[in-house]
């Protein structure tokens, strides 16, 4: 029954031990969860299983055969498919082509016959296209069939990746953070989808994700990794109550469940701002730009006194290519205020930030910052005025050391701050000052990005998806930092998936829907009246408390019988399979159950 057997796998990169003595068993038909803090080695294990890396020690067996000398494509043929944390679709191909490829990649089709367009190739093409369309239909991707994969929003791309993995007819699918970047509603939908996929395509899954609600809901069994070792394993309910796991992964308490975790985090001190005037216009660079020759502090106060916002956006529209993503955006941020932008994926939050910071051109509308019109200004000029933008994915240079990254920020913005100021705020970075940024963990990288931003002594900091892909403890610390920024008088404009956490720190929030702002409300109001945010959002807050009753159930609410999965994944003639599926549809029961019944009859 054991499909995937991982035994004592170790992986080291030079001196870094990424995995150490990891053993893991996955049974047929199971959805196995793999969780752990950032840098615990989850993706490394995935790479070892899918063949992108060869483990330095230990062995991996798939269906009782060693995978030691099998290259990635050979493993794919044996039935291991995977998705990628950083999307790896073939961007210049259509969605349909993305699915057609794995369908026929396993069969060794003749290149010459393809080029000549012989009937054999023709038939195979049609069959592949048909199957690809069927899979896209199940994943509700029909409208995107002929779109180029690279043009789609990230959430849709994740689903296409899942479809592509299934298209290979795998026995095992490795899912690397399928919920990253999805909002609570979409994650809920994904959980449904994963169950449907298991039922319809008879696959086992190994799932890595930070979204605990998803992992707890869909997984049959969970392994917890920490520092490259298996820390704990068990059923979701057991793992959730395991004190070791809670300590290592969730922090003292899950941030979604309680707010007490916030107090345990030591509040760092911040000494960023020099006491003198900040933008004094003395530096040649600053003089060349539109920076006003006044102290930012006093100006902010003046603006605040006048009631004029620090950032004022009116009628903003922007987009990419022929696509208009946002229109008629009006928002403002006052000095020293924390404002959150929330909304579903693809609602236009990121695009709004990009249009404000000048990374993309505004098509219409006006952006005023610190009393000046900055619409159409170059991004570096806007940055020097004191508007810092930390983009999604952080925009770091992976090969630069921490210290060089920070120094670069000082040089390029002409800021007078000292690098030590950043180390005071993030002491952890001082230990890692010589390390290349690319080798840091996700949380540390976010710290570098934030340190870099505050070294430029901004008046407004725009944070895009700060917490994406980070473990809850780190996220909590980062949110704590926002409090610190506010205390220092830095205004913050925040785009965030963790709505509850965002509302904890924010004063006000804008709710984005379909490229424009649907509501504006104070954070307190939103915390009180949850109906103001769409119901889908609150799923994430409540999900943690749900019990694991449904865990073993499939999409139809039937308990998955291990034997059943075995039966259904047997090879059988297509006519029989189709007859079974038709009957299943008529009777509204899973095909596997009918197959089992028939088997019983035959045995009698």
């Amino acid at each position, binding site marked *: 029954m054991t499909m995937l057997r991982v035994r004592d796998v170790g992986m080291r990169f030079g001196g870094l031990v990424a995995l150490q003595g990891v053993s893991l068993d996955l049974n047929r038909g199971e959805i196995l969860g793999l969780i752990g803090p950032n840098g615990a080695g989850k993706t490394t294990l995935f790479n070892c299983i899918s063949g992108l890396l060869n483990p330095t020690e230990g062995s991996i067996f798939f269906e009782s055969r060693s995978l030691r000398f099998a290259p990635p494509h050979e493993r794919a043929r044996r039935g291991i498919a995977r998705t990628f944390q950083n999307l790896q679709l073939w961007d210049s191909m*259509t969605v349909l082509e993305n699915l057609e*490829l794995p369908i026929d990649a396993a069969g060794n089709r003749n290149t010459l016959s393809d080029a000549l367009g012989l009937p054999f190739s023709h038939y195979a093409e049609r069959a592949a296209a048909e199957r690809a369309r069927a899979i896209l239909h199940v994943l509700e991707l029909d409208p995107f069939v002929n779109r180029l994969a690279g043009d789609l929003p990230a959430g849709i791309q994740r689903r296409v990746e899942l479809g592509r993995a299934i298209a290979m007819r795998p026995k095992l699918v490795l899912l690397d953070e399928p919920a990253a970047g999805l909002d609570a509603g979409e994650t809920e939908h994904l959980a449904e989808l994963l169950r449907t996929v298991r039922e319809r395509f008879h696959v086992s899954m190994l799932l890595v994700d930070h979204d605990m609600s998803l992992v707890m809901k869909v997984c049959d069994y969970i392994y917890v990794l920490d520092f490259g070792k298996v820390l704990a394993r068990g059923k979701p309910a057991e793992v959730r109550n395991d004190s070791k796991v809670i300590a290592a992964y969730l922090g003292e308490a899950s941030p979604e469940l309680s707010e007490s975790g916030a107090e345990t985090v030591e509040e760092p001190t911040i000494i960023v701002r020099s006491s003198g005037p900040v933008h004094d216009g003395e530096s040649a660079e600053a003089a060349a730009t539109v920076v006003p020759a006044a102290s930012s502090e006093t100006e902010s106060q003046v603006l605040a006194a006048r009631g004029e916002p620090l950032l004022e956006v009116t009628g903003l529209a922007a987009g990419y290519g022929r696509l208009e993503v946002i229109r008629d955006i009006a928002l403002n941020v006052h000095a020293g205020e924390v404002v959150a932008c929330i909304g579903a994926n693809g609602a236009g939050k990121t695009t709004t930030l990009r249009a404000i910071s000048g990374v993309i051109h505004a098509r219409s509308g006006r952006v005023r910052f610190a009393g000046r019109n900055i619409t159409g200004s170059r991004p570096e000029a806007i940055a020097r005025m004191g508007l810092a933008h930390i983009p999604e994915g952080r925009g770091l240079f992976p090969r630069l050391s921490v210290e060089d990254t920070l120094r670069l920020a000082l040089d390029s913005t002409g800021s007078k701050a000292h690098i030590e100021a950043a180390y005071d705020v993030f002491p952890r970075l001082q230990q890692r000052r010589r390390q290349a940024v690319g080798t840091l963990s996700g949380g540390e990288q976010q710290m570098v990005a934030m340190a870099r931003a505050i070294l430029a002594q901004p008046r407004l900091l725009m944070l895009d998806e700060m917490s994406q892909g980070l473990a809850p403890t780190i996220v909590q610390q980062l949110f704590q930092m926002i409090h610190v920024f506010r205390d220092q008088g830095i205004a913050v404009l925040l785009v965030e998936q963790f709505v509850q956490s965002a509302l904890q720190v924010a004063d006000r929030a804008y709710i984005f829907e379909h490229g424009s702002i649907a509501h504006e409300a104070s954070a307190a109001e939103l915390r009180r009246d949850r109906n103001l945010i769409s119901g889908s959002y609150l799923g994430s807050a409540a999900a943690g408390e749900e019990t694991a009753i449904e865990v073993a159930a499939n999409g139809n609410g039937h308990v998955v019988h291990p034997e059943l999965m075995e039966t259904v994944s047997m090879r059988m003639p297509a006519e029989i399979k189709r007859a079974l599926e038709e009957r299943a549809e008529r009777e509204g029961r899973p095909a596997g159950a009918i197959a089992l019944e028939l088997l019983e009859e035959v045995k009698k």
Partner: protein
Amino acid sequence: MMPGHIVRFAVAIVAFAILARLPVGLDQAFQFDAALALIWGFGILSLVLLTGYAGQVSLCQATFAGVAAYGAGMTVSSMHGGYLLGIVIGVVFATILGVIVGLPALRLHGITLAIVTLGIALVFDRYVFQDHIFDWFTGGTGGWQVTSADLLGIKVDSSQHLLAAYDVLLALFCLVSVLMVNLHQSGAGRRLRAIRDSEVAASTMGVNLTRYKLLAFAMSAGIAGLGGSFYPLIAGSVSPQPFWVFTSLQLAAIGVLMGVRYVPAAALGGLFMAVVPDVLTRYGHGTFMNRFNYDISFDWFQIAVGVLLILQLILLPDGVWGDMRAKLLHARGAAQRKPAREAPA
């Protein structure tokens, strides 16, 4: 055959019918240019497959053509084989070299691969085509003379041979073009494009990288060699000069200029590369309005290619053909219908 295939063959036949009689009235030199345009057309076509489809960089396509040209010349002059055999041997030589060049490509990407292939082009230019050790292959400093060659009744010493060779080359070019478009739209082509877009994803989705990268290099070298093996037939001899390093660079530059992802760009590029320098050397000097003397030599062509390449990268990022095609499709309102499957035809 699928409807798409029939359409493509029909287009190819029509194109052949129109183009076959085009150089009839022209003088010998322009007929030579027409045939040369097709040889360089094959060179760019090979880049479309290698760079445009599979995403691999190569700066030694003229070397593949040169090896094939010398192979054909050697077969005909030294071994007294028929020209048909010469072509086969030329293409086989080029393909073998293609596989050898493809081996480092299994590990290298982008700029490093470009340097390695440039190195191979240099080595062949200096130490094979021009070195006495390889006289058995290159025929010494004079190269091979193929004045007595005979291909399907085309005799090199007849006055009509350029036109006939042009027609054979054109037919082959049309055929290979159709096959390449078919390939682009089929499973094998998708696998090549998957390697271009994301190698990790391709390998974990069952694409054998070793096999398909080597296949791309082999096919590409074979296509370049097919054109190159005709060079002795149209020129009457082989020499190192047409296949030196700079030709490889020019093929790459003009390929990108015309749109390296599209098959018709190869025809445009070949024409540009063969005809424009000749026109310049012939008509590029004289007196303008009886006052100003001017002399636009071949050197000007190279400068022009450089300037055009820069302009193209700014104005037409997808190449001359690529952007023309996009504009045409857009004008036809194809944007509202299903977006094009990136068909290069």
